[in-house]
């Protein structure tokens, strides 16, 4: 379905790539999506988790996601959120350590003003950390950028958030309650937002927001071994949908 741009007077007046904001045929400017890259041989040990622990399941999926999307040829991970959290966290640890050391060395009555200062500083840092994590970072798992060159520099930015949907039960109907109504196992909900623009964000080429939910049982077997290929294909499909500019 790729349109050729080498025609002369026969160029159609249909929608050009720059206008695409929602679902449109893939433009020749569209960089390669993750599914078009050949699957790499597994460079990582087999992932094995405790299937009863939803936190471990989510962390395993998040890790696999990060490894998949940051491989050469795909996005470059931006560590801004992690670095801010590390900086604030370790700074507060050092403030606490310094205050503790000072309180230990100096006699109590004399040390009170400095300990007050240290305590207030620590509380401020912790408060800032909490605010940042809650409002700015939120559920974000991966932020990536990619620059490709095809006639001009194209910058892509992708942000993925994930969360676990806990075990839920289908709503009981008032009249009939079937014995086959089973509970839905914990699910992995992945949402992504994608932006493609020309260099320095001068003009928007494509924008997409998609999400998908899949039960963990789709990626993990009963022993807890993760089927990374299936997971990567699922993620790849979602990313390609986003790159095509769909809005879900």
């Amino acid at each position: 379905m790729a349109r050729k741009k080498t025609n002369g007077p026969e160029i159609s007046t249909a929608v050009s790539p720059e206008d695409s904001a929602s679902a449109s045929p893939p433009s020749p400017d569209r960089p390669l999506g993750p599914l078009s890259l050949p699957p790499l041989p597994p460079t990582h040990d087999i992932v094995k988790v405790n299937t009863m622990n939803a936190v471990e399941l989510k962390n395993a999926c998040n890790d696999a996601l990060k490894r998949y999307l940051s491989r050469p040829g795909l996005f470059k991970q931006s560590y801004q959120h992690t670095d801010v959290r590390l900086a604030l966290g370790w700074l507060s640890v050092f403030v606490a350590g310094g205050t503790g050391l000072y309180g230990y060395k100096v006699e109590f009555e004399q040390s009170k003003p400095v300990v007050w200062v240290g305590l207030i500083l620590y509380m401020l840092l912790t408060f800032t950390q909490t605010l940042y994590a809650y409002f700015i970072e939120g559920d974000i798992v991966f932020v990536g950028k990619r620059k490709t060159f095809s006639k001009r520099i194209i910058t892509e930015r992708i942000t993925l958030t994930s969360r676990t949907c806990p075990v839920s039960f289908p709503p009981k109907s008032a009249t009939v309650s079937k014995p086959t109504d089973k509970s839905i196992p914990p699910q992995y909900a992945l949402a992504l937002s994608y932006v493609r623009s020309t260099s320095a964000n001068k003009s928007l080429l494509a924008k997409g927001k998609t999400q998908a939910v899949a039960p963990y049982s789709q990626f993990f077997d009963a022993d807890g071994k993760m089927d990374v290929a299936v997971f990567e294909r699922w993620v790849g499909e979602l990313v390609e949908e986003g790159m095509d500019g769909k809005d879900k």
Partner: protein
Amino acid sequence: MFSRELKALRRLDPRQFLLQALNYAGGMATTLMFWHALCLATNCESPVVVVLSGSMEPAFYRGDLIFLTNPASERYHIGDITVYKVPSQDIPIVHRVLETHDFFDSGVDQQLLLTKGDNNPVDDTQLYGGLEYLERKHIVGKVRGFLPYIGYVTIAMNDFPRLKYALLGGLGLLGLLQRE
């Protein structure tokens, strides 16, 4: 035996390692800051102490945990149980106030106190290291409440230092390997 845990450690990249080390260090920092906040709130250098001797039986036994406060404007009365530290000694002593002498010294309320352990035959004058009475500044705080037996953990860790290191080491390993 620890092969799975060792594999998990090897898989960590520097950022991941720093994040998990932060979990552990952050927990310790929080505990430390809580302690300092408690010290400042109670105006007491050691708001929680363990009873080491039996000189206050039957009120407090060895191994009890006691909670202190030391409001700056407070005057102590006969019958209060106080913890004090004589300058020549390191160990704080928990005894009851027997006598108080209040006076005004250059604009500040001052007190001289005499204490005695409930289970002791004589008062504490011998323990004061030359002083006849305790001054207000020697008092660490007044007992507000207690918990029986809990203090034995601290006594055990002081008598067997290896237990302390084992506990800290175990917690450290757990903090590094688990992820929240």
